[in-house]
């Protein structure tokens, strides 16, 4: 116990228990479904997780600063549709330029959110609930409800989802999934070690203190929304590559999956704690559930009910269990620093109510 307390932080306990939960879920589904432990199941889960993960990373940044971005689903839809139309018209567009266009468009939409939240002083839930409707409405109007189809897209894009970077013992790692992993690593290290990353935590855990020590709160919150929009734009590109057929409805409801991944992954909905890696674990948990329930042949309709319950449990465990853990850890720290004599402990015990 002492070893555990010295080497693992309470937040990491949270992530480790989520990892355990994923393993339990995999073992459970493995015993229910014939031929579950195959590379096919793995590949399915991995490729479905990529999109949610990328969006969830951006969402994590926003949630860390005590905000929320509900417009990401619409941003994904807008960028997927816009870049799809662009590529349908100009087949020889440079692939890199296409990706950059998607990211830039997403960042621009995110900047609108950030501007309204940071300088308009409107709560983020109101702003992004509004832009969720506005962006989707603009998309439907501009597109005239037409559909981007696979055969209008250039060959390199259609082949992208089947491109594998490497293969370990029959388990393929698709390029799109590795892209998501790279994003997670970059942002996990960035939030962990860069000054700007630590400032996101500072704003979320105590906005007043952050203001008092002179952090540029507005610019940082703005940056979080721009990054969230840019990552949603990238996810829009991945969506386009993966599905090929893009309707005006694509990406709808993705914001709920992203928020679910973030919250299940142990990021506190009130900001200030949680990690990008945790959000990815949350996304993997949701992807595993999604694909496994599909294979179990019980209807896909169960997915939402289970997801809702999972979010609630995650938030509840945050509030109840994590606080106890922190208290326990805090006491252990005291003991390590000054091992108090036996009488002092008794006296302290007698004083406490």
């Amino acid at each position: 116990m002492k070893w555990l307390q010295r080497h693992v932080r309470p937040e990491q306990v949270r992530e480790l228990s989520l990892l355990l939960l994923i393993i339990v879920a995999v073992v459970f589904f493995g015993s229910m479904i014939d031929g579950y432990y195959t590379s096919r199941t793995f590949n399915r889960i991995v490729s479905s997780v990529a999109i949610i993960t990328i969006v969830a990373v951006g969402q994590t940044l926003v949630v860390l600063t005590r905000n929320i971005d509900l417009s990401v689903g619409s941003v994904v839809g807008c960028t997927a549709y816009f870049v799809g139309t662009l590529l349908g018209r100009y087949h020889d567009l440079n692939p890199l330029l296409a990706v950059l266009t998607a990211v830039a468009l997403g960042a621009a939409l995110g900047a609108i959110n950030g501007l309204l939240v940071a300088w308009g002083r409107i709560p983020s839930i109101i702003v992004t609930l509004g832009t969720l409707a506005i962006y989707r409405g603009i998309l439907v109007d501009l597109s005239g409800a037409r559909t981007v189809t696979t055969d209008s897209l250039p060959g390199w894009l259609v082949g992208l989802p089947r491109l594998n970077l490497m293969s370990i013992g029959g388990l393929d790692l698709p390029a799109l999934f590795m892209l998501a992993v790279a994003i997670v690593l970059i942002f996990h290290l960035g939030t962990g070690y860069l000054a700007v990353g630590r400032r996101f935590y500072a704003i979320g855990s105590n906005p007043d203190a952050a203001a008092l020590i002179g952090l540029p709160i507005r610019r940082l919150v703005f940056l979080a929304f721009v990054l969230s929009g840019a990552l949603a734009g990238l996810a829009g590109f991945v969506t386009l590559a993966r599905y090929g057929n893009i309707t005006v409805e694509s990406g709808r409801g993705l914001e709920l999956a992203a928020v679910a991944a973030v919250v299940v992954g142990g990021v506190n909905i009130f900001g200030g704690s949680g990690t990008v890696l945790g959000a990815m674990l949350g996304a993997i948990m949701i992807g595993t559930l999604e694909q496994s329930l599909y294979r179990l042949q019980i209807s896909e309709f169960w997915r939402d009910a289970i997801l809702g319950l999972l979010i609630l449990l995650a938030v509840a465990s945050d509030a109840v269990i994590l606080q106890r853990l922190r208290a326990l850890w805090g006491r252990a720290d005291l003991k390590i620093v000054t091992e108090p004599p036996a009488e002092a402990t008794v006296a302290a015990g007698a004083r406490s109510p």
Partner: protein
Amino acid sequence: MTILGRLKSWEGLLLGLLAVIVVMNILRSPYFLGAGNIANLFQLSIEKIIVALIMTLIIINGEIDLSVASIMGLAACVLAWLFQMGASLPIAIVGGLLAGLAAGLFNGFWVAYVGLPSLAVTLAGLIGFRGIARILVEDRAIGGFPVWFNTLGQQGILGPITASILIFAVLFAIVAIVLHGSALGRLVYVIGNNLQAARYSGVRVQSVKMTLFAASGLIAALAGILYAARLGSVRGDMATGFELDIITIVLLGGVSIFGGSGNLAGVGLSILVILNLRNGMGLANITGNTQTSVIGALLIFSVLAPNLAQNLQRRWIGRKT
């Protein structure tokens, strides 16, 4: 300027906005002011404005309920499911209402007694209750209800006035009395203004919050059932996204998203503004999606405008001193 003065000017702004929209609508269509069209105006969004009444109390109390649209869907689906299992319709209606009450109590338990943020709890509810609704009816559309049920939702009982409109009027009166004329109403404001102060002065915060969320579930369920009666059939995805309109109505009415201020008169005006706006855009052949965009923009504007006004005011005062 006092807070009261600012609220009054907000309602003045709404009244002006309403006048402009109504005049434009009248110019566009001579039938606009007919009793039939006005009843129709209410009838087309009646479920949303019923739920907006209870949402007003919840937001003044400093909380939010994002799960109302899913509870509407859940109640309608429970009704349809019970009806399909062979229950008589009145029993199915009671079942739907109980399902909504249970969902509200569930939300209230986590918010009031466990102390979780209502944003997170009701977001989980938004996903979860919709999930249960989908499990019950899957991707079917269940219809074939007795004639009286459809009549209840579609036909007027006092001239063009339908049962739903009557229910809305009664609920409006009840909420007005509770909010502005009862002890519970004062407590709702006190808690929304300063939760800590309310708790230390011995206000039973938990039971007030629990009551509000239970009422929200029950009224959302009622609205969902009325919606089913109006449409004549029930699907798993009915009422999806209604929370946007409902929250917009409340905030446009001058209720602060941070709780503690706002009144029902403002919300009443904002209901009229939004109904007339939607109707006017419909008359002008503007599609549903653009309408939703406009509502979204209005939502942002309704919070942005007081903020900007406050900024200007502060600058004005700063210059004078």
